[in-house]
């Protein structure tokens, strides 16, 4: 298929998909096309789209592409939709989530050790919000459940993948800069 033929279709599919559309999902629609070629086209669609548009944008999140409004228009969108700002996660939930994101897969006991706090109810909240999920059991006594972040986590925080998170070492440098 020609680029000029494929690109509009990709745009249409990113638009109708109800979750970030990944290259592997696109490959299932176009099994004859090379993955590299599909990715190249999708990247071009994204860049051209974002150059042209001021009201919407295509973003690379959770290993896929998704169309959203731009953050700077949030007040107008809220006013039209008549919605209040959504509830944010509590500090306890965010800290627990940070531990899980950086130490995954991780058990409840390990989270307790790092945070110095029992974090069961924060874990429950994060499970309810589908930001984390179970990842089998650890091969130690008691075989405790392991937890890791979900795809929803990437979408919720606008991350392309886990590698996009700053490393813990980068935070360490930040702390050193502050304390010295």
């Amino acid at each position, binding site marked *: 298929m020609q680029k000029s033929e494929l690109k509009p279709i990709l745009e249409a599919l990113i638009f109708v998909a109800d979750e970030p559309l990944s290259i592997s999902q696109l490959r299932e629609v176009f099994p004859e096309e090379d993955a590299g070629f599909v990715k190249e086209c999708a990247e071009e669609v994204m860049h051209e789209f974002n150059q042209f548009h001021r009201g919407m944008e295509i973003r690379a999140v959770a290993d896929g592409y998704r169309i959203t409004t731009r953050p700077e228009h949030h007040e107008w969108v809220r006013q039209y939709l008549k919605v209040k700002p959504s509830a944010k996660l509590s500090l306890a939930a965010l800290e627990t989530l940070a*531990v899980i994101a950086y130490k995954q897969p991780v058990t409840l006991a390990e989270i307790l050790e790092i945070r*110095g706090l029992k974090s069961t109810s924060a874990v429950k909240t994060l499970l309810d919000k589908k930001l984390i999920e179970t990842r089998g059991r650890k091969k130690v006594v008691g075989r405790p459940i392991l937890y890791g972040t979900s795809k929803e986590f990437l979408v919720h925080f606008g991350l392309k993948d886990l590698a996009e998170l700053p490393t813990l070492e980068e935070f360490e440098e930040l702390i050193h800069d502050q304390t010295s």
Partner: protein
Amino acid sequence: MDEKTSVSQVESFSDVPESLRVKLEIFEGPMDLLLHLIRKQEIDIYDIPIARITEQYLEYLRIMKELNINVAGEWLVMAATLILIKSKMLLPPDPEVPGTPLEEDPRMPLVQQLLEHQKFKSAAQMLYERETVELSVWGNPKTEFQDEEEGIVSANVFDLIKAFHEIVQRFRDRIVMDVEHESITLEQKLLELRSLLALQPVIYFSSFFQRRISKMHLIVTFLAVLEMARLREINVFQNLTYDDIKIAKVQA
């Protein structure tokens, strides 16, 4: 600690007198308090004056107790750790013990723990900022091509256990409702408990009293639990003195 958070957390303790509310900040955990004390006094984290910090830490705990704020176990663990470090600092290096040429600073494990904690706090802050941005964008709401079925959920393992738990709760409620109208015999209650335990190998004793039930029913339930324990069909145990009692089916 983030100033905004401490304020809102203090506000949740509405029984704290106004005069004390200003002084007392509520920290999420012992490490948050320690980091706060260190930062406020501009202390070098690698050279913590352990005696002074311990004293301030214990003082804070004392105020918490005075205000009847529940002091959870982790606060006491940290207090013990601080006291232990303090006493180790007072000991002169033991010349009799060989193989310890480089005396390790007894504060180091705590310092490492605090630095680690600090990193995760920064990570949480980063997540907070990202979330703020993401909550200001919207995706495509149009549903023309989406599933038509009602009440669709995208299920994971947690949804399965949640659904099963829900079913077990309903099952238990059905049992309780059936007997509200009539008097209950010990035999009936034994049958009910057995079928409940077939579904759920472990039951919390308190779960029987979540519904409003008659005193008669309560007593019969208690007798049935005792009877089953006597017959060694179940084990009854408690992790801590005032903890909920757990009833576990004895595996055949």
